[in-house]
């Protein structure tokens, strides 16, 4: 695939935009439990930064920035993070994904916590698990499509 490296406007503009896209992606993931958004949407936004980079600078550059092996590993890691949070709650004595048990509750504590301290950790970690997997799977799909086009 012919890349667009000779297009100065595209190159400069995407270099400016990519950091903002990434920050916005993290914002959408992190803010997901309170506002619109969440792990899935944020993950797609994050992936779009990488895919833009790949489109403009070529897939070799993308492979350097995000090595396919690492990307595939992270895709598995995201699922593990999600299910790991669930399993952690299970081991701490609650039901699977019962966030109240992420920070082991004190004797006689009210569950769910009134201040929501433990629940926030649960939601954030799970959202990041989803976000990481969605982002890396999107990148993998992009990698695979471009591979086929060159074959």
């Amino acid at each position, binding site marked *: 695939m012919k890349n667009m490296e000779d297009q100065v406007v595209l190159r400069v503009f995407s270099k400016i935009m990519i950091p903002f896209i990434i920050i916005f992606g993290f914002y959408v993931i992190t803010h997901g439990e309170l506002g619109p958004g969440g792990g899935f949407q944020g993950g797609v936004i994050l992936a779009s930064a990488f895919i833009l980079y790949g489109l403009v600078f070529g897939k070799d550059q993308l492979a350097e920035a995000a090595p396919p092996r690492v990307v595939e590993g992270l895709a598995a890691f995201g699922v593990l993070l999600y*299910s790991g949070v669930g399993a952690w709650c299970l081991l701490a004595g609650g039901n699977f994904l019962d966030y*109240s048990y992420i920070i082991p509750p004190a004797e006689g504590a009210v569950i769910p916590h009134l201040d929501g301290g433990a629940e926030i950790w649960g939601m954030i970690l799970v959202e990041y698990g989803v976000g990481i997997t969605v982002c890396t799977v999107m990148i993998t799909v992009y990698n695979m499509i471009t591979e086929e086009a060159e074959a």
Partner: protein
Amino acid sequence: MIDSIPALMVVLPLMAGVITVFTGKGDKPWAWATAITGIVFAMSIALLAEVTAHGPVTYNFGNWPSQYGIAYTIDAMNGFVLFVVSLIAAVTTYYSRLSVKDEIPNDRLHIFYALWLLTICGLLGITITGDTFNVYVLLEISSLTLYALIAMGYRRDRRALTASLRYVILGSVGASFLLLGIGYLMMITGTLNMVDMHDRLQVLIHNDEYSRTIMVAYAFLLVGLSLKLALFPLHMWLPNAYTYAPSAVTGLVAATATKVAVYMTIRFLFGIFGRDFSFGAVESSDVLLTCAGLGVLYTGIQAARQNNVKSVLAWSSLGQIGYIVIGFSLNNENGLTGSVVHILNHALIKGGMFLALGCVAYRLGGTRLTHLKGLGRKMPWTMAAFTAGGLGLIGFPLTGGFIGKWYIGLGALDAGNWLILVVIMLGSLLAVIYVFRVVYAIYFGEAEPDSVHATEAPASMVVCTWILIGMSLVCGLWSEWSVDLAANAAKAMLAGFGGAH
């Protein structure tokens, strides 16, 4: 930890499946998958014992009340199916080591076993869950991984790719029908929980409200489920998918995937819509019996015409699915008991026979009828297992296959449906033809030059084959335990939602 078994049944294979990607090369992914499926099998026995002794078990994810969150509900019906699925999963996983190494590119083994465990996770999840949307999600997990597993047979035969693509298309159509059906039901009942959905639907049906929406939802679900369980004439994805998939995958899929779809159908028809609606207000009996009855005859004839023995068994699977559908469509206790017990017995028989063919493929590189000629002397144990399984398919007395057909036949008598009884007899006759065509080649055929030097398959493969076939014989001789479990399940389903209130 015991209380958490319902969650672990699904979570363990899910997490383990993902971890498999990191297990490295060689036998490590296989050893890991074997350990996990072994643990899952042990848990399913514990769960079945608990359900049989103390009634339904409910597990709420995240401790949310079941109306809001996802609840897993296990009663006599799905406890039994979970036992069947995890039994087959454990045996086929242990069996798969040599066969998979032989048929899958060896640098992909960790991916193969990751998909394998995720398929099992999806199948167990569909069975265990008490939440209709969760059914759809896990159905997608199991189907998507299954498509990939089937396509992995491409190294032996490139037709695996087209077979898999056809399965992708028809499977996706089926899944989207299911999603639409579930969506309509959620729209009018406002819940996804199966127990609540059942209760609210009964009120709506009784008051004659939203009757058209309920009907549309029912139609979508019935067609989607029929596609998934490969009911004639919606069966076209199945024969090639089974034939060209890697041997171990065929063993797993043939014994579990359609059985889980049958379970889903029974759950939706009896457990959610209720039998008064499914077989009263809508006369689905006629439709289902016609399709299944014609299917039994048509697939029997097709099975007798195939030259690849894997195809013979694939077509025969369709016929056996037909019997199971006939059983529950009769809408009485004997018929439903027959269906449920046949889920177990057919899984054992067909799983075992496909594993026997896997042994043949391992030694000879193919499973055409010509490959099997004269193998009775070269691979006596494998071929004895195949023959014993074949007798089960026919429904020979003292084999597992007989028990299910007997109860389905009793069900047909109870329903006064003589025509169906004739169909069951004719179907068995066709089974005699297609089984003995193969058995004749095995014992009386002249060995082809390629297979003169064939020897018995490795012990680990033959033992696994015999575990399944042996169990099917045991279930035929001492049928009380399996029939009791099935009868419990049938009673629970006929009563509505398994009494999980």
